[in-house]
């Protein structure tokens, strides 16, 4: 399958549902020329979405106990690579 046509697939990982975690987040800002770092902590719902192949997996975190000032949402998507389970 051509790389550009890889699908987005939702899923659920019961091993992660309810787990407390921290995420070292961030991303590009403005026109992408700059970036920023943000930190989040909360509880994973177990829901995830895989983007493309090889899968780029993102987990949904809610009940946020740490988030940037003025971050208005109650949930955040966290890329698996910088997601750290903290209740092991």
């Amino acid at each position, binding site marked *: 399958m051509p790389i550009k046509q890889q699908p*987005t697939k939702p899923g659920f990982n019961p091993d992660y549902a309810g787990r407390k975690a921290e995420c070292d987040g961030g991303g590009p800002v403005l026109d992408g020329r700059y970036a920023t770092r943000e930190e989040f902590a909360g509880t994973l719902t177990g829901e995830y979405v895989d983007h493309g192949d090889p899968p780029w997996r993102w987990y949904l975190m809610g009940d946020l106990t740490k988030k940037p000032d003025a971050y208005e949402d109650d949930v955040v998507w966290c890329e698996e690579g910088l997601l750290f389970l903290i209740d092991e």
Partner: protein
Amino acid sequence: MAKDPLHTKFCDMMGIEFPILAFTHCKDVVAAVVNAGGFACLGEAMHTPERIEADIKWIREKVGDKPFGVDLVLPSTAPPAGTVEKLHEGIPQEYWDFAAKIKKDYEIPDPKGKQDLHQWGGLNQEIARAQMDVILEEKVPVFCSGLGSPHFLVEAAHERDMKVFGLIGKKRQAQREIDQGVDVIIAQGYDAAGHTGPIGTFSIVAEVAAIAGDVPVIAAGGISTGRHLAASLCLGASGVWTGSMWLCSRESDTDMVMKEILLEADSDSTVYSNSISGFPMRVTKCAWTKEWAKPDALKPLSSPYQMLLSSEYIQAANDWRRPDLMTEAAGQGIGFVDSMKPARQMIFDMVEEALATFEELTGVAPE
């Protein structure tokens, strides 16, 4: 005669002469640095996949088989879809009034054209994925992630004889990426331009070098001289990642007015501010950051609201080339850049000063 302290394991890994990595948004700088014996990564986070493909081909024509990299800012968190809708309605009137006062106090004209506010990748993983896919298809020698973890691409990259570099701001990020097979770790300290982590360069480089084993660690954040290079190697790094200094190179397409601002800057000329984007980033001080730093200023909004608020100011500053208004991401090492030179000369000056530093410390001339 001592061995050459600048011939590091990073040089051996990449087959290059000098352990100096340039990060730049200008492909002419990439070509010049690579052809001078260093290594360079082209920042492409703001470009379409088609533009990225064209830039890669252009660089290959200029450097031949010499290695170079492409850098993307991979997002690692994203708010739920739909939060950027109705941006204007989300900004309280008192913020519009604050921005209008800055405009009036500094006599800022309207921008010349329509503002173009958009984001790549950060709120849209599909776009970031498309950018990554073209880099894999083109088999660029190095893919560098400027923020998020590139772990999921390591296997696909290695199958294509590509290397993967990861830029980190904390020890646990480095450990995670080392465990995931990332080939080179770039330890970026607080002195850096733009999106720095909370830990100083002196600390993060030594901390990561202590856990990296055979994985080369590259020091980043406020580095612009041969002495910085020598110091980084003493901390355990195998090279240095440099950014702000290239803005002032002869080849750079940075606006000349901005170059003059940067050449006049010293280490106190930057500020770590939320006022541009809603996220903390290190930029050169300007009228906007100064006003938002005042004790009676409003608290910056979150992104993307603060970005929308600042966008007219940013565009007007650049359209009218006002040195009192313009700003750029720059690290604290910018104070050492005081003349505009060809990139090749900047590489050689850095190498010469590093070698002289080692000779000064040891009393022995290196090979």
